């Protein structure tokens, strides 16, 4: 009997799978699920430390389709950020992975999304972005571009909300965009996002094959493939592997992440410094004006403290403290009563 390959914590790839998907065949979300499985397996994430958080929508169902043995919380529409914030405060040791959609994030959940970013909650926040409401059969979402056409012919006239632009504007410490069909780019970005301490936003264009994959859509497979403007080639070196430098000086940028891992960015289309926030905003806007979809790591700030650190929470999960740690001592309590008299 050949033994199955295992990762660094001794688990086979199958341990990172979940229930069978109930999404449409060809859905971009299923690809993202597979890229997540690959990233989590390769990183050797302990399933018990992983908390899969989501809101409502096709995207938000997907946490059931990977790492079945991890905890998951399918919350209410647009409110995943609040649940994730609370879970992270209760237990800093959790690895929080939020999966949301464009309706869940940019419409009903825009406020929570922005406030989570403001607080820099330590989590990975993936938007499975298809510009449409799938479960309710094809209405536009807030990320749909002006002029994009619905399956039945209606044209979107509202300005789109770009989650990456919003996140950059309010100081998100990790902003990236990718495409569900580009595992080569997405897997290292997922790993880097998880290594980052703070809110790591990954806006992943993920075509809806049933309602938004036609001509006139700017979230279709063919449109994304034709207009994808990759900033750089992304690779990820985990902290538990040695770094082998195999690129010429000046052609790549390497950034160390919170846990000692490194992200290596080799220049392709743009000469972009991902630690320059203003440059990221400008590049995003210029790319939009050119009618291109900019993908890659837009911005990274490894110095910003995450919420739990700023709140000075102990490393030990708050949920583990008992009466003796949390109650005022009898002596102090007596003093307090005397003060109130």
């Amino acid at each position, binding site marked *: 009997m050949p033994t199955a390959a295992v990762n660094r914590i001794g688990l086979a790839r199958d341990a990172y799978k979940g*229930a069978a998907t109930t999404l449409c065949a060809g859905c971009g979300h299923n690809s993202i699920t597979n890229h997540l499985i690959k990233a989590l397996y390769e990183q050797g994430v*302990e*399933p*018990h*430390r992983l*908390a899969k958080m989501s809101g409502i929508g096709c995207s938000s169902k997907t*946490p*059931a389709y990977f*790492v*079945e*043995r*991890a*905890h*998951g*919380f*399918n*919350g*209410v529409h647009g*409110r995943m*950020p*609040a*649940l*994730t*914030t*609370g*879970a*992270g*405060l*209760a*237990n800093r*040791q*959790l690895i929080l992975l939020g999966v949301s959609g464009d309706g869940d994030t940019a419409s009903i959940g825009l*406020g*929570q999304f922005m*406030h989570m970013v403001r*607080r820099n909650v330590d989590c990975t926040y993936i938007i499975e972005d298809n510009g449409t409401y799938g479960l309710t059969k094809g209405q536009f979402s807030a990320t749909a571009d002006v002029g994009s056409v619905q399956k039945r012919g209606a044209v979107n006239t509202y300005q789109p909300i770009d989650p990456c632009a919003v996140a950059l504007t309010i100081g998100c410490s990790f902003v990236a965009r990718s495409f569900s069909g580009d595992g080569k780019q997405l897997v290292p970005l997922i790993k880097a996002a998880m290594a980052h301490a703070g809110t790591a936003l990954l806006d992943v264009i993920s075509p809806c094959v049933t309602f938004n994959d036609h001509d006139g859509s700017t979230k279709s497979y063919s449109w994304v493939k034709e207009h994808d403007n990759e900033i750089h080639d992304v690779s990820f070196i985990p902290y538990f592997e040695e770094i082998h430098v195999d690129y010429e000086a000046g052609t790549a940028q390497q950034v160390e992440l919170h846990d000692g891992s490194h992200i290596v960015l080799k220049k392709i289309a743009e000469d972009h410094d991902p630690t320059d926030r203003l440059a990221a905003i400008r590049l995003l806007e210029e790319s939009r004006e050119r009618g291109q979809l900019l993908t890659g790591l837009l911005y990274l700030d490894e110095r910003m403290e995450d*919420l*739990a650190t700023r*709140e*000075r*929470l*102990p490393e030990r*999960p*708050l*949920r*583990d*403290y*008992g*009466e003796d740690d*949390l*109650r*005022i001592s*009898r002596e*102090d*309590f007596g003093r*307090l*009563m005397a*003060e*109130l*008299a």
Partner: protein
Amino acid sequence: MCCGPAGISVVRRGNAGREYDVSFGKTNLQQLINDLTFQAATVNGSGSQSANLVLTRAIFSMGIPVAPKNVFPSNIEGLPTWYQLRISPRGYQARHGDPDLLVSLNPATWSADVKAVRPGGAVVHEEAYSTAEARDDLQYFPVPFSKLAKTQIQSDSLRKQLTNMLYVGIVAGLLRIPFEAIEHGIQRTFQSKPKAWPVNVDAARVGYEYWREHFSERPIRHMLKPVPGGTDGLMLIEGNQAAALGCVMGGCTVAAWYPITPSSSLCENLIAYADRFRVDPATGEKRIAIVQAEDELAALGIAIGAGWAGARAMTSTSGPGISLMAEFSGLAYYAEVPVVIFDIQRIGPSTGLPTRTSQGDVGFAYTLSHGDTRHLVLLPGTVAECYEFAQTAFDLADRFQTPVFVLSDLDLGMNLWMSPDFKYPEKGFDRGKVLSAADLERLQGDWGRYRDIDGDAVTYRTLPGTANLDAGYFTRGSGHDEEARYTESPEIYARNMDRLARKFETAREAVPQPAIESSSNTTVGLIAYGSTHYAVVEARDLLKERGLAVDYLRIRALPLSKAVVDFVAEHEHVYVVEQNRDGQMYDLVRLLLPPELVGRVRSIRHYDGQPIPAYVITRPLLELEAVPV
């Protein structure tokens, strides 16, 4: 310029309690000791609250029971505000209503305020106010407050605030409060700011000297007399502060909130206690996270996320926030996540009367969310119960894995109340049915998140982060089977709904049971809850004096105990007293009763935004129970 009628005759009698026979103006009333309602009518934002607290603390330190009520506008500066301080020999804490001693520093309400003073009362007012329509059954004490402030208070920056301390001195003189008590009141009010003591003492003394010079020969109907030991063992605390202390002692480690009157001071007190008692002095680490959220949806979401992950988590809000929390409350009910929600009730919604009290959320909170939902609701009636029930709420939330609402109100939450010292908790936390990694090791995978193992409909949960590969499960709303797998099966859905209903029945006897006082053989009973308690206490005394004894059942939680049915069965007439228009608890009580008992229950409702006074209860009872005059 006007002054009170001259020629007051004082006859010394020498018996305890009521020492003098005095006639004041055209009234002929006995002098009263330690029995009056003081009212300061000022403009909000002027700093009068400190002055009122100084008087309150001073009188309390004389051993005299006090019951302060702050009637304030939804405004930062410039609108009328009133402070009522009730002093009664028996220490009643319910609102009494019209004042006996008025201090008026607000020209806008001057005329109306004077009209409300009870006959034989006294009015201290800014000298400049018109007394053309002076009542002849009151004594007037004009004081040149502005002039005194300009000439006697040196500090330009503090003049506005310190002007209020002038009336403290005047009132001290009129009521015969020893000046040392005023000094104590100042030190107590500015406990953490000793630098503020001398300027305040000086300003109060200016007022006191003015009284001595101008009014000391004019006794008023009411005076105060120290009662040695009268308030020993009692403290003064607001319900919100008590609840915050309860949260600390109950082991709260995550709190999320959005500012809203009248609940904000709960989390603000929690922040203060956390800074004092939850910070490790060696490392600076904090054993609690308190987050000011972007709205109440997020506040409850953060608390639920934390509760799910195993922390004792809470949020605090008021009616408008409760409205926003409906969806998340339903999720927590169905997903069975522990969380504590404080609702400091007020009138609403929107700009209704946000600074006025109410018990109007009972029915709403009890069933908050769409679908079949029932929540555990705790109803503290005293500040001691605000402290105690905060702790009980965390235990119940963990035990029953469900949201627990604690319904206080503006009156209870934001006013100072006398209370015996709080008890140090003797029991440890009840963290409910949580499986550890070792438990899971032993079970070898044989567990399901929603399996009813013990027959009490309360299931076992695991916390994220539990180091065992069997720990994980997927949390979602109502569509799940016993193993937490998604299903739309009609049988399984209905089975889960039935279990949740059974769980609620298990909780019915575990929540705080009613407090029953049935000291006499009577056919009349009263049912009340929350801050209405104090009006009932007083009303029962008043009714007893009139020959009508009434029994009393105080509801302390929902779901209602079966003891409520027994209580109704034991009485011919039972009056449910509450502070809302629709008789929300009256409805819940009747729903609980067998049909033959429903007709015994009657409803007394008070809903004008002011705390309920005792006469709202005594008047209908005297009439309906046909008590002879």
